């Protein structure tokens, strides 16, 4: 019977077209294919979004670009793979992506039970509430019995359940698939308040017809540190991603920007020179060339530039630095020592 021969043929075609993935040595694999495969969100304002020309931008996207700049010397050598919340971990585990940078909350369970490592925090977030002004609600504790608009597949779903249980209140969760639908649901009055990560609340708020009619409540009910994820048991790659992120944070701390990077590389202070590779061999210790951090800051910019461009004052979202400011400026952003 040839019934199955066709499927066998298909499987053969599949194997011919398949790319081998070497889960154990991601660095070598990325260098060989000369492109970094990066799992991002399907569309999340300020974090990973495509424009009309198909160009990706966002804070999460910049993490991947930084790693590509550090490893391949070219921030544009990234293949972005949009993933849904359900697919993301499996895509990383199965080797489909080399790095997952998809506003993923660093939790104990995920870090320990999924065979993954979180390489740091890109954005310190927390779930918050947005309500309609004319409801007259001043605090989240007055929301007993209200309907909540929630985006599906986020850890917010669990956070809000805890919060209401703790305060002995009831709510009804209305979950939506995409942020646009969540916004539309809130706007129409389908729910009385909207719960989401604070970063997203601002994006959702400017999408409203009348943003001035709704307010963000002061309560932040959960810790949502968002960061890039890599596979476990590949420490070399884990280090590269971790220090690429730290390099852009340290870049801001040292005052290195994409504009003055060339100048500082030649005649900066010792700390700046060490970071940019004109002194010491930090790059080689990572298995990269010494100008790795120079490439990151030159091509992608330091953390502050990336932040302002994507979610801060230069973007429509206008999110304040808040927790995500440097540790010496009222935030908790702190890169370990670059030496």
């Amino acid at each position, binding site marked *: 019977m040839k019934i199955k021969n066709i499927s066998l043929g298909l499987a053969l075609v599949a194997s011919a077209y398949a790319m081998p993935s070497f889960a154990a040595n991601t660095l070598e694999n990325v260098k060989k294919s000369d492109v970094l495969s990066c799992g991002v969100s399907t569309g999340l304002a300020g974090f990973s979004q495509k424009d009309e020309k198909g160009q990706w931008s966002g804070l999460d996207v910049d993490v991947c670009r930084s790693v590509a700049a550090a490893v391949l010397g070219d921030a544009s050598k990234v293949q972005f793979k949009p993933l849904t919340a359900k697919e993301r*971990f499996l895509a990383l585990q199965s080797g489909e992506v080399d790095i997952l940078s998809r506003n993923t909350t660093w939790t104990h369970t995920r870090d320990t039970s999924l065979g993954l490592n979180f390489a740091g925090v890109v954005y310190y977030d927390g779930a918050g509430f947005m309500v309609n002004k004319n409801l007259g609600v001043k605090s989240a504790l007055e929301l007993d019995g*209200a309907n909540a608009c929630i985006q*599906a597949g986020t850890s917010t779903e669990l956070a809000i359940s805890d919060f209401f249980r703790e305060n002995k209140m009831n709510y*009804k969760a209305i979950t939506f698939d995409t942020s646009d639908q969540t916004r539309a649901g809130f706007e129409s009055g389908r729910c009385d308040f909207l719960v989401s990560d604070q970063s997203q609340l601002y994006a959702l708020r400017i999408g409203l017809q009348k943003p001035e009619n709704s307010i963000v409540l002061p309560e932040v009910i959960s810790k949502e540190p968002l960061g890039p994820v890599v596979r476990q048991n590949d420490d070399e790659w884990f280090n590269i991603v971790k220090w690429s992120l730290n390099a852009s944070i340290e870049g801001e701390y040292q005052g290195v920007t994409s504009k003055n990077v060339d100048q500082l590389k030649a005649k900066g202070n010792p700390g700046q020179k060490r970071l940019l590779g004109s002194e010491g061999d930090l790059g080689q210790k990572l298995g990269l060339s010494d100008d790795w951090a120079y490439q990151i800051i030159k091509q992608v910019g330091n953390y502050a530039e990336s932040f302002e461009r994507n979610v801060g004052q230069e973007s429509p979202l206008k999110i304040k630095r808040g927790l995500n400011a440097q540790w010496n400026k009222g935030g908790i952003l702190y890169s370990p020592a670059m030496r």
Partner: protein
Amino acid sequence: MFSKKTIEQIKLETRPNSASLNSFYNNPKYRGWIYQALLAIFLIGFFYTIVSNTLANMEAQGIKSGFSFLSTSAGFDVLMTLITFETTDSYLRIFAIGILNTILVSLVGILFSTILGFIFGIAYFSPNYLIKKIATTYVEVFRNIPVILQVIFWYTIFNTLPIARESINVGDSVFLNVTGLYLPKLVGEAGSGFVYIAIFLSMISMFFVKHWARKRQEKSGQQFPVLWVCLAILVGLPTLTLLISGIPFHFDYPELKGFNFSGGITVIPEFMSLAVALSIYTGAFIAEAVRAGIQSVPQGQTEAARSLGLKESKIMSLIVVPQSMRVITPMLNSEYQSLVKNTTVATAIGYPELFTVFAGSALNQVGQAVEIMFMTLVIYFALNMTISFVMNRFNKRTELTTR
């Protein structure tokens, strides 16, 4: 000693020998066995590879396996449940809730899509130009747009309803707003049991009346106004009991309390948009099936009925539609099945049916794709088999008995 043999003789002698080998291969029965053995070997190899790969991958990636997650606490809320649910309840309960919600929306969808389908399918033959055009437009528009878009469309429409405080109010008992449709709920008091018994009795007597009327018509040819008598029984008997027992019912009216209405029955807009979209989408296919079914009834049947002096409405209901059911029923079967499968588009609007709440939210928290997908697929498969079974039984009754 050699006896001289002609070539022909050699051929003749060797033929049976080679023929027996050939005939073994040429015998369809043996050849069939060989093919099937090859197929079996291939399948065993195929599944062995898949299973061993899966197990190896799961172990390497540290994915847990087994069904123990079912008894752990879910920790998230579900929008609509037909059985009671707390966020601390188990995933097994989530599974049950998902199944019940799927069944509910499927049943509602099947009911309304059938009604819509028959109305528009028959409307296609209406003498009124506008009705006919609308029937055609309905079928052609809704059949050719992906159902997921239609669900989103209806959800957007329901989202334009007024907010809770400005609800559309029908007699202070029915409210419609963006958070849903609120209906008064009938609550039975002591003595309500008699009324239920009366309803049950009236249904049984209806069955007998219908049976008797048919017997009488077959015997004497006299028609009996079955419909009116049945209606009278159905309304009369329970009403009488209701009055005698002193109306042991009251309505629980929905009331605006705090943010929302409480009390009564709540129909959430997610449910309404899914049910509306599925009914309209599937209804368009059923209308097309009904049209084809009616067209399949030979013109001679209608003419014969007319010459017998039947009224036009009677011709449709007594002659044409029953005969067309033979063509329509198998198509209904597959349309109902695809309706059940299409309930999965609820994931776009968040109605908590099986696929959204179990293969969605639960899978997202637990991460055990293999077990959860297996359970989900088994349920859809079982639902479709049930529909198929029921419809085949029904089809047996409508089939033409050929002698």
